């Protein structure tokens, strides 16, 4: 479906195996996995701190997919979050 050489303009469906990582956070939908109180963390039952911990899985999955599927660099140099002082970055372009 896609051409073998990445064009400047892509078209059609572009599939990248890294995208499959986005499925990982869905583990949080399998309630039998964590519907119990032990082990506790800081007094929080497992049910609660496990789900809070999956937030990290969600963040990692999107960060990795973003990094690994970047095709062409867009100015400003991607990767680094722009600092607070660049908040009005949009107005200069």
């Amino acid at each position, binding site marked *: 479906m896609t051409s073998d050489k990445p064009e400047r*303009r*892509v*078209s*059609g*469906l*572009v599939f990248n195996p890294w*995208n499959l990582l*986005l*499925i*990982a*956070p*869905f583990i*949080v*939908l*399998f*309630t*039998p996995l964590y*519907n*119990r*109180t032990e082990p*506790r963390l*800081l*007094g*929080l*039952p497992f*049910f*609660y701190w496990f*789900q*809070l911990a*999956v*937030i990290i*899985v*969600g*963040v990692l*999955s*999107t*960060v990795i*997919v*973003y990094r690994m599927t970047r095709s062409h660099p*867009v*100015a400003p140099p*991607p990767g680094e*979050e*722009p600092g*607070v002082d*660049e*908040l*009005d*970055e*949009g*107005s200069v*372009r």
Partner: protein
Amino acid sequence: MEWVELIVFSLLFLLVTVMGFVAARWRAAASLDHLDEWGLGGRKFGSWITWFLIGGDLYTAYTFVAVPALLFGAGATGFFALPYTIIAYPLVFLPILRMWSVSRARGYVTPADFVRGRYDSPLLALVVAVTGIVATMPYIALQLVGLEAVLRSMGFNGAGFLGHLPLLIAFVILALYTYQSGLRAPALIAFVKDILIYLVILVAVIYLPAKLGGWDAIFGAAQEKFAASEAPADGILLNANNQLQYATLALGSALALFLYPHSITGVLASRGRDVLKRNMSALPAYSLLLGLLALLGFVAIAAGTKPIVNNATGRPDNNTIVPELFNGQFPSWFAGIAFAAIGIGALVPAAIMSIAAANLWTRNVYKEFLHKDATHAQEAKQAKVASLVVKFGAVAFILFIDPQYAIDLQLIGGVIILQTLPAVAIALYTRWLHRWALLAGWLVGMTWGMVLLYGIPNPASGRAHFGGSALALDKLNLFGWQPFEGSTVQIYVGFVALLANLLVAVVGTLIVRRLNVSNGQDGTTDADYHVDEGDEDLRPIAAAH
């Protein structure tokens, strides 16, 4: 009357009011007389602004009072809000980029614009637009419920019209600066709102458990309360019957989240695909906040907080539980900050939602059917007026109708917005589903979802209909055939309705294709879905045509 709280609240409210009016000039184009400008803030928000805007948009005041109230009342089931927001971003990561690109390439302002272009069908677009408006209206009304919970905690707990007056004043101010500044107003105010919210929640989740003997003691108190209560479904863990409901409600809500017009508005206002990708990783910071906040429902149990009786309805209002907790546990000045955070937290989403609804009305009803050759200036004018109508409609809702209906309608709203998924989200990938089959699927999903919701009672509040979104599988009845007869396992109604919708859409497509009915002209090209900022020959923002 709590004077210190009131003064702090008023000062912060005054600050955001000034910001709301000044926002019109913030990074402004030559003129605001174009929907790209008034309705989408010029389509140029960078990563930070987008983060505050979408965060302020999705995590509303109602969420902040209702989710802890759910945990306070029922326990673990209320925690579904966390898995919901965890999976939402990975789920939409890819489709949302296609939505942004095609909208940027073609100048679409609303999801219905996209459907119009993709399927060449004003009717299907109208259906999507009306569904969006109907789902959004009660959501705006609910922001008022959140705001009012705070106002009542500060002492404005009058009966009748006088009891609603502070709310009315707050909303008139909001309506005026949204009218003037468009999407720039909530974008700017969101900074204040979110910084206040982060501050308050972080202090609350560190200070309160320390004061009340740690999380161990808090969960102990919660367990004791649920063990003593008569309701069988509550508790600090899920039971055998509500686990499926928990998972399907989380999944259904996540699927629905970015179908809401106001979410799309926030997305389309961003500058480019990279901004969105970064935000999909950064927005979960709000989920962490929401998860911690939810636990305040248990903290309120341990602290012995009692919901106050709403003098306008005469019933104890669980939504006042977080404001009352802050009232009882924090010094007045900090409670004032916390209330301002929730109060301003109501204004940001209310503004974005009314803009989104106004955009839908203008683009997909007014321009499509009423005034076909409206100029861009006329569109902008129409949207501004529509945003006023939408907001005052929401106020009227709270003033003249029982707020309980707003909560019911919000429940329905989640189910019906989900029915636009095939026409909006699946259409981003393929035009295989036929436009007439999509209409049929929508109709079936809407009707069946409504019928199922109507049949759900709520024994706790003694209501016979619209008592919640958890359907016992036993009640599933397909023309007399009950596939899960006798089962007490519960599932989310919206999920069931969506499955029916999809099934009808697929079968309908197979049939309609046999009949060789036209599926319209696709107004988009494959390349449109990959357009990005900085591309050559990119459509100019606020283009004349």
